[in-house]
């Protein structure tokens, strides 16, 4: 595709700085019950061609984060501070018109639920070609050809037939492929994949993730893979950021995250994954307590009420995001896992618990 070459060449010039630099991004929603601090100070950098996995429960702010960076938030009752630089240009405060120029061509998003993300009364082909014709100025025939090629490249059989069909005539997996084709149509260099496989059958999930990875490699795109499922990011992301209550609590390259976990929340997440080796009827490890209150977060660490390592300090002072040795592992915890302080804290808590049980 001739036009794509043009963009690739441009990107090769700018390899000096990261594609995406986010600094202290905060998104607060003003509601009747108070200010919801959905994203509360997130910073990271993403190089082109790399994948960042963002992991967290519902309510952790991961979806709002991606929307905040792209600028897809509602206009009323939203306060957004901080900076997000794409290719060195600040996008956090851009006007709607300028943002629309970026959407589709530079950054794109694949949404969670392919059933509702596609316009039910519009042909699949048209949903792809409209981007092409609007952003890339293609004429009808050229756009159609490109759309067919796109559908083929995302693995949809009989694309010539499919362009004329409506979303409800396709299966869930195929619809998600169409979504991906739409997102990639104009050759963006940054892709947000927001829970791309959550709404799909397990068997289809791997195919879609493979597809995303393949497209990313081929197009040299940066990708932000958002999910609640650590299994999804395990083999696919270069770095992983774990979010809790609107903040990043731990961020590390994937292997480091799994091998030397530092934050208790990450550890708890890892422990809660059921493993094949477990015998049947093994109790699943759960994280006790309730999701955090985003309106009036507690003093100190947001995770402290549910943390096995929590000490008095945790309830009072909010931990700062520190960078461990090696320079690529960040975590925010006073008593990190795998450190002497952490082990001591855990032991202390377990002893206390035993005493309480005896007394009761």
């Amino acid at each position, binding site marked *: 595709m001739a036009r794509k070459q043009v963009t690739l060449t441009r990107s090769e010039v700018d390899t000096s700085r990261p594609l995406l630099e986010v600094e202290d991004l905060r998104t607060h929603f003003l509601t009747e019950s108070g200010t919801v601090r959905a994203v509360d100070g997130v910073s990271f950098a993403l190089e082109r061609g790399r994948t960042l996995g963002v992991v967290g429960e519902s309510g952790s702010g991961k979806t709002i984060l991606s929307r905040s960076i*792209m600028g*897809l938030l509602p206009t009323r009752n939203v306060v957004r501070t901080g900076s997000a630089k794409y290719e060195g240009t600040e996008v956090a405060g851009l006007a*709607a018109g300028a943002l*629309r*120029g*970026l*959407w*589709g*061509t530079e950054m*794109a*998003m694949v*949404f969670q*639920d392919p059933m*509702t*993300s*596609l*316009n*039910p*009364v*519009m042909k699949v082909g048209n949903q792809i070609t*409209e*981007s092409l014709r*609007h*952003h890339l100025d293609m004429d009808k025939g050229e756009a159609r050809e490109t759309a067919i090629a796109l559908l083929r490249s995302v693995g949809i059989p009989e694309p010539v037939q499919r362009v004329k069909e*409506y979303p*409800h*005539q396709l*299966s869930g997996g195929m619809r998600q492929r169409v*979504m991906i084709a*739409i997102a990639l149509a104009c050759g963006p260099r940054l892709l947000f994949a927001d829970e791309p496989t959550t709404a799909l059958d397990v068997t289809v999930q791997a195919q879609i993730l493979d597809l995303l990875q393949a497209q990313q490699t081929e197009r040299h795109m940066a990708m932000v893979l958002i999910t609640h499922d650590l299994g999804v990011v395990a083999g696919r992301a270069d770095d992983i950021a774990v979010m809790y209550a609107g903040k990043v609590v731990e961020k590390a390259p994937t292997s480091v995250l799994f091998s030397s976990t530092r934050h208790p929340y990450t550890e708890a997440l890892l422990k809660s994954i059921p493993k094949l080796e477990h015998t049947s009827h093994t109790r699943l490890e759960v994280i006790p307590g309730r999701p955090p209150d985003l309106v009036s977060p507690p003093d100190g660490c947001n995770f402290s009420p549910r943390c096995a390592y929590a000490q008095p300090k945790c309830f009072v002072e909010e931990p700062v995001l520190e960078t461990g040795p090696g320079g690529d592992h960040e975590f925010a915890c006073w008593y990190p896992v795998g450190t002497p302080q952490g082990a001591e804290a855990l032991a202390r808590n377990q002893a206390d618990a035993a005493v309480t049980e005896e007394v009761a």
Partner: protein
Amino acid sequence: MRYIGQKIVQLVAVLFLVTFLTFLLLNLLKGGPQTAALGIGADEQAVEQFRQEQHLDDPTIVRYVNWLGNLATGDLGDSLILNVPVSDLLSQRLPATLQLMLYATVLSLGLAIPLGILSAWRADSWFDKSANTIAFAFLSIPNFIFGVLLVFLFSIRLGWLPATGYVPFGEDPAEHFRRMILPTIALAAGQVAVYMRLLRTDMISTLQEDFIGVARAKGMPTRRVLLRHALRPSSFSLLTVAAISVGQLIGGTIVIERIFAIAGLGSLIVESIFTRDYLVVQGCIVVVAVGFVLVNFVVDILYAVLDPRIRHARAIA
């Protein structure tokens, strides 16, 4: 296709029912069909002769079938007062009414669609709130009052437009339209409010759907998102309401034609009621009923043809 088949069966059933009920109307009248045809005070002999000719002693069903047969050939009897076939009267008067209804629909949709879209897009803004208030006022004002007010303001006080009279399109298109302006506005006012509010509600709902966010995230300009993405699904309910509103329109033309002295079907109904020309009344009712049922049928079919979700109903998992 099965859908269309079902609809045709429904159509036939409803047509039978409606024509049967209309046929029965004459029986409601004290004195029955004889009085309807001959008027009161007709002498005994004429009445008796009429009873024999019309087989008024036959079972109702038989009479109905006969009547239906006549209807099919266009024979609706003769006007008592004017001594012309009812069908002649109907065909004379129908065009004006149809024109009026058409213009009113075009005007009301033409205003309601942009207003509805804007109100939905800018929900809760001052524009939305004021549009809503004005719509509420228009919903509350009966069309005959609005018609009188329009005449008072534009004809009498300002003298811009004629108060009454109808000129057929063929004769003088310019004058035809000039005279239709006020009646059309009077008829359309209430419709605009209904359509606008409906579209607004529907579009607010549609705008909250995921695929709208996706369309925006593709970088599509607002106008395109509103018109091509949001309006499409919402337009189906608008279509259905428009069909139902035809009924309201018909009621409206009766009053409007009276105010503006338009020789249409509506004024024919009123005149014939005044003169107790029962057969004409019945003829008008038949036309209205059948027309109404047919319009609804066409809309139902259109609906199926246009909405791909219905077309492929089988495919919905």
